[in-house]
Structures are given as C-alpha cells and as structure tokens.
C-alpha cells in the first residue's frame, strides 16, 4: 500500500508539471482562440534565459549571492518573455486578425521553431542547471501507518503549492476582472470585440505575457528538477493530451487533466506495464486522449459546442 501511494504521489507531481504547461495552452486559447504550438518552446526559452542569467549576472556584476542572482534572473527572464509576447503580436498576430484558426496554428508552429533556435543561439545548447534553493531532501510521511512510511520530495511539494496558487489567481483574474472579460470576449469573436473598442493588440500582448509567465514558472520548476535542455520543449507534446482531457477552454481542466495523466501513466507503468513489457508511460497519455475524443470531445470541463443547424 505504501508503494502504491508513493507511485500515486510521484504521478501527481509529474502531472502537475504537465498541468503547468497545459495551462499556458489554455490561457492563449481562451483569450485569442489560437492553439499555441509554441508553448513548449516558450517553456524552454524562459528556462534557458533564467538558467543562464542566474550564472552570468553574478559574473558580469561581480556579486555572489544566490538569492539575488535568482531574483534578478527571474525578473530579466520575465522581461524577455514580455518582449517575446510583444514581438509575436507585432510581427505575427497583428497581421492575421480574423483569419482561420488553422492559419494561426501554423504561425505558432513557426514561432515554436524560431524560439527553439533563437533560444539556443543566445544561451547555448548544453544542459544547464537551475538552483532556486528548493530543498532536495526527501521527507517520510505516514510512518506510523505503513512500515517505512511514504517517501515524498519536499521540492515537489513546494512546486505543487506554487502551481496551485497560480491556478487560483488566474481563474479569479479571468472571471472577476474587466480585463479578464475582455480576454474572453476576444476569444469568442475578434470582430465584435473590435467594434466595442477592445484593443486586440494590447489584449494579445497581455495574454502572451501571462502565458510567458506561466512558461517561466513551469520552466524553473522543471529545470530545477531535471536540468534545462532542449528536450524541455518536447514536454509540450505531453501537454496536448492534457488539454484534450481537461477541455481547451478550462483553467481547472488543465490542472485536473494534468494530474489524471500524470498519475495514470505512472500507475499503469508500474502495475500494467510488466504484462506488456513496459514502456506504457510513453503512449498512455495519447491513448487516453484518443478515448476521450471519441466519448467526450469537449473534454472534462470544456464548453460544450452546440451548433444550430
């Protein structure tokens, strides 16, 4: 039983990281109707910037303080992500107003490759580590319930708290503020939004910046666990089944979807895997997403689309 709970919790933690990446997808989709293929590349870009700057800044300015270096690097990386958001709006989205979703999707695919390339040109392409001072030591809980107790990572626990806070804040922002309402309006109908004077360009910069911020948080957590390297941008591929499961337009859906997939793939690997010779973890998420597409295409929490015929 103790082992089962350990596997379960391990899955939750992986799932939470999927959820953070998926959250970026959902934000941009909700607010602009664009399926942003570049979200994974934004995670990589933000993490690379943060990892490199946190070691470069102390060298440039000659100080030796981990906290200061990290704070400055995070701030600088955030500024970079806002700059990316601004450039994306200026150079791409602005020219594609009122175009088909497919056109915009292709554009974000281009942005993804560009970001991957530019990120590695600027910051190098080796493996870098991020150390934001999260405690690495494991903790044992429930020791009086199971023999040996259950092992969890303190690092994972802090990461989960950060993610939860982020989700609550974003949900409130979308539902309760005038800007959140304007974001939802733009997602539904560009032209109508313009006609009532909602500034599309500013809205897009805001939402891509917020998505950039989420990418930065995901990048830092992931990077401090496993190091920053190119494969980080492939994490986005795992986030696709998550958004299908949770629903493309739902912030809580991204979280639940991420957790379900994280837990599902860990448990299936451990308990069903041996019968297939293992390797379930790699494709489990996609099979689950496929099943969902057949049964409930709008996802767990997505808005059901009703077409008048």
């Amino acid at each position, binding site marked *: 039983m103790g082992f089962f709970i350990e596997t379960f919790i391990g899955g939750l933690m992986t799932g939470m990281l999927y959820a953070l990446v998926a959250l970026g997808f959902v934000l941009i989709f909700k607010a602009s109707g664009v399926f942003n293929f570049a979200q994974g590349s934004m995670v990589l870009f933000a993490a690379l910037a943060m990892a490199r700057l946190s070691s470069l800044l102390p060298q440039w300015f000659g100080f030796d303080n981990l906290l200061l270096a990290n704070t400055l690097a995070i701030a600088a990386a955030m500024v970079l992500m806002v700059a990316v958001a601004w450039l994306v709006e200026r150079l791409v989205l602005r020219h594609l107003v009122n175009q088909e979703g497919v056109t915009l999707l292709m554009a974000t695919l281009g942005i993804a490759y560009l970001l991957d390339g530019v990120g590695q040109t600027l910051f190098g392409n080796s493996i870098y580590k991020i150390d934001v001072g999260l405690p690495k030591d494991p903790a044992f809980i429930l020791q009086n319930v199971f023999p040996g107790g259950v092992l969890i990572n303190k690092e994972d626990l802090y990461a989960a708290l950060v993610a939860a806070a982020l989700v609550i804040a974003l949900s409130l*922002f979308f539902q*309760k*503020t*005038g*800007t*959140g*309402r*304007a974001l*939802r*309006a733009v*997602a*539904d*109908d560009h*032209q*109508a*939004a*313009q*006609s*009532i*004077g*909602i*500034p*599309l360009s500013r809205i897009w910069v*805001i939402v891509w910046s917020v998505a950039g911020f989420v990418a930065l948080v995901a990048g830092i957590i992931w990077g401090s666990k496993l190091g920053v390297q190119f494969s980080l941008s492939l994490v986005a591929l795992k986030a696709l089944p998550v958004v299908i499961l949770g629903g493309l*337009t739902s912030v809580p859906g991204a979280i639940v979807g991420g957790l379900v997939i994280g837990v599902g793939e860990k448990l299936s690997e451990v308990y069903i895997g041996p019968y297939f010779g293992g390797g379930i973890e790699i494709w489990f998420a996609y099979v689950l997403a496929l099943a969902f597409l057949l049964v409930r295409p709008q996802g767990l929490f997505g*808005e059901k689309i*009703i077409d008048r015929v």
Partner: protein
Amino acid sequence: MNTRGIGDVILDVTNISLAFGGVKALTDISFDVREHELRAIIGPNGAGKSSMLNCINGVYTPQQGAISFRGRSFSHMNSRQVAEMGIARTFQNLALFKGMSVLDNIMTGRNLKMKSNLFQQAVHWGAAAREETEHREFVERIVDFLEIQAHRKTPVGRLPYGLQKRVDLGRALAMQPQVLLLDEPMAGMNVEEKQDMSRFILDVNDEYGTTIVLIEHDMGVVMDISDRIVVLDYGLKIGDGTPDEVRANPDVISAYLGTH
C-alpha cells in the same frame, strides 16, 4: 416627425466607392445623417448596404471618398478608433460572445469606459471595485430596458435568436454611443419580435436622443419608423428622402418590384 429636435449633420458620407477586385460594391455614394435622426439604408439583397455600414465602422476602407464625423474627416480608420469616437454597431449575423452570460456580454460594451488599470483590477482594489459596481448598475438598466431580466445569467449561445438580437443591441447601447449602426436588426424575426425590436429602436432614439443608422431590407418596418431613407441598388444610390418621397420614387419601385 421633427418633434425630437433633429439637429445638424453629424455624419457625412461623400463620394464613397468600394470595390473588391472587379466587383464594385459601392459606387460614388453620398448621404448625410443628422443628429438625433433615425436614418435608414434600404435596398434589395446585395445592394451594398452592409458594405456601406462596414465603411462607416472602419471594417472596410473605401478606395475613394471620405466620411466625416462631427466635422472630423477620416478615410483610414480601424474599428477600435471608430468605437472610441462614439460609434457603436450591431451585426447582421450575430457576433456575440457565445460562451459568456448576457450580463457579461453587455458588460464588455463598457470596456472603453473603464479607467482602472490591469493591476488595480487584478487585486480588485478601491477604484476598480467601485468602478465595476457603477458599470454593473448601468448594464442592469439596459437589461431592464430590453426586458431580458430573466436571462441575465444565461450564456447567450443558449438564447433564442430574437433575444440574442436584443443582447447584441444591449452591448452596443452599453457603449453610450452617439451614433448607433444597426445591421438588419430584424432579419429572421417573426412579426411579434419585429414589433418589439421596432419599439426598442424608437425608444432608444426618443429617450436617449441617439442618432441611429438602420439597415433593413424589409421596407414595411423602415417606412414606419425612419425619418429619412437612402435606397441603394447594385452599389448605386437610387433614392434619398422621406418615406413618402422614397415610396413615390419610380426607380425605387422598379428596383423592389424587379421591373426595369
């Protein structure tokens, strides 16, 4: 009909021509709209009515001609700038925010009037909270006026068509526009719904003194409520005047009855 105190020319359209490739949508159209007036643009399908409205609204940029609003002339405008100048519109094919409630849809119309910035809104702090309440009250008055109280929290996608048209009007009204452009507000409605909508349009015009430019192809309704009417056919202006003048115009009669 002049009892509402129709004022000076507020919107002046001069020699507008618009073509899409080889298709001439509008050719040399001129007309004016006076303050507090209810001005209609009519014509058979494909006459260029919606194109005309889209030019005024800044969706299309005409190749020739100019449009002036309160004496300020503009030829290149985008929708947002037009909205800031105080011109609101509704859409022929509903363009509501389907996933959002009736209240939220109408609230978006207050967007330009909101002064608090993103960070104040984010923490729902002081001025932002007070402002939200004020706008909410304004929106509730519109909801009452349009008699859609019962549906305030319903996602608009689930409302029947006639009510969605009212929400569209409500969203435009929330902008407190000086000029309201209505693109076929009665298209696809039954007689009763048409009467309701006519009443709302007349009330807006009466009570708030809003200048209204109305596009319709149903001649009957337009004749009853408009002060002056422009008639378009194949992108040309074939008539302009009071309902009686337009009714007597032989070109208009042949365009509508199809006898050339």
